[in-house]
């Protein structure tokens, strides 16, 4: 979806000289709002991660690495490792479902495309609370699914379908699938049908056109799609909390528990800073990878 990166390359012709006061009038309000609500909180979080923890959920400004030392523990490594495993598994499933789905949708007639877009946007916007709740109903012991599985002997009678890893993974894939389909939509709809027609005319089958022509052209997009899933999974809170057990808790739950439960804001902030650093590293890695591929192509 194009919302992720607002493109800044505005096409425009020669314009009259920029009146400075006009720009100032336009941008002062938005700039102040962004400064106060985005830049200040970001700095605050870094400051918080270095602060001294006081009893009773309080903290005093300071410069200590106490909280960051906790990041060097096996517990933190295990949490991050699990979050990454969940994210990558989810990414592989999501991308391999979403990419062909988006490809087929972009080749439909207008009315069918609009219907799919409304359906995808509608399900994408549904609250995580609601989806988790729906999965709880769907997977409950009294539900049809559990009954059917028990009937064919795949599940012990009265056995539960959650909390466990597959339940968390399925729900995450559910939450992310519309996002990832919509993310691939612009690039795939821009694909010139003549390129595919040319490949088909030269004797390539539809499948080999897809795997040899379409897929290689979309490498960068696919990598970014994977990154999108990873970012979302690291932020997922309710899904692992409700459909998983503590071993399946992602970093988001631990951040929230530290902040709201244990009242240790500095630790929560240190976790959050570590997550952001990790995300930026992944972003840079993705950019490098897709650039090298493009250079090689």
């Amino acid at each position, binding site marked *: 979806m194009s*919302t*992720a*990166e*607002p*493109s*800044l390359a*505005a096409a*425009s012709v020669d314009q009259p000289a*920029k009146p400075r006061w006009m*720009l100032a009038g*336009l*941008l002062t*309000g*938005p*700039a102040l*709002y962004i400064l106060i*609500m*985005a*830049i*200040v*909180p970001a700095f*605050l979080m870094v400051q918080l991660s270095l602060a001294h923890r006081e009893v009773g959920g309080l903290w005093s400004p300071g410069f200590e690495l106490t909280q960051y030392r906790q990041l060097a523990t096996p517990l933190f490594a295990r949490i991050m490792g699990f979050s990454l495993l969940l994210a990558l598994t989810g990414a592989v499933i999501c991308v391999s479902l979403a990419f062909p789905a988006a490809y087929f949708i972009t080749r439909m007639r207008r*009315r069918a*495309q*609009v219907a799919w*877009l*409304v*359906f*995808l946007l509608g399900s994408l*916007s*549904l*609250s*995580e*609370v*609601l989806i988790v*709740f*729906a999965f709880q*109903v*769907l997977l*409950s012991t009294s539900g049809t699914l559990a009954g059917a599985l028990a009937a064919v002997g795949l599940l012990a009678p009265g056995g539960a379908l959650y909390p466990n890893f597959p339940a968390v993974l399925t729900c995450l894939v*559910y939450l992310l699938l*519309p996002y990832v389909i*919509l993310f691939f*939509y612009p*690039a795939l*709809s*821009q694909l010139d049908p003549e390129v595919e027609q040319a490949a088909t005319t030269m004797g390539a089958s539809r499948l080999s056109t897809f795997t040899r022509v379409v897929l290689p052209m979309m490498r960068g997009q696919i990598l970014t799609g994977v990154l999108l899933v990873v*970012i979302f999974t*690291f*932020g997922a*809170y*309710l899904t692992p909390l*409700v459909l998983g057990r503590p071993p399946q808790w992602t970093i*988001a739950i631990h*951040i929230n528990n530290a902040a*709201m439960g244990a009242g240790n*804001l500095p630790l929560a902030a240190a976790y*959050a800073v570590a*997550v952001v650093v990790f*995300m930026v590293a992944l972003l840079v890695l993705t950019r490098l990878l897709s650039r090298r591929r493009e250079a090689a192509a």
Partner: protein
Amino acid sequence: MNLDPGMILRRGFLGLVALFLAAPLIVVLSVSFNATRRMSFPPTEFSLRWYGEFFGDYAWMASLERSLTIAGLAALVSVMVALPITYAIWRYQAKAAAVLAGIGGALFLIPGVVAALMLSAFWGVTGHVGRLENVVLSHAIVLLGIPLSLLMVGFRTIDQAQVEAAYTMGARDSDAFRMVVRPAMTPYILCAFIFVFVLSINEYLIAYMVAGFTVQTLPIKIFASMRQGYEPTMCVAAVIFMVMGFSAFTLMSKVADLPRLMGRTRPLED
């Protein structure tokens, strides 16, 4: 009738994707019409009992109203912040505006829990805690990337020749704005508003961490009830979300070219 195997395969695959995406919604929808208090699927007896109970319950209605207020204000704020930024990029190619848009886009890419923590720390420091406006301003900033990118799509559709013609004929900025920009942008502004509104009304974690103890939005109320066990009115609340979301995007597809809004620039025939 086209019986090409590739076509059948494509249709089958998309059908399965649609079924997967629809399944939990169908379950909740049908359970909400069930007469019994017990959570059972498939439903045994049709009844509108829980709908009556939901709309007659003061606490549920208060949460719904609160969520609608927050979403409306958050959508208003984020569109009002995004509009001058995108206008400055389109009209003046202002670098400062591009930087602001970049920050807005980057915010959209940080994990939700991190944004929630940042903002809850911020409101904690200001001492302005547990207020409705905290949720409004927090949602508006986190969702800013949406109006930024939708309005940018809108500005790009404006015919530059038309704008130039207006200036050649001696129109001032305000005239050009009234005659060309405003009519062209109205559907995009409306879409940006709807999109932020729907996402805000569904958002849980930020609302919870910023003011969850005092400002109980609909998702917070549903989650609180979930922890106390099953209650059929929860399904009704869920259905309300579904109806609101799907009708909002249907409305959006009526006022604007949805494929274009979602990033298609290649023309699409009917």
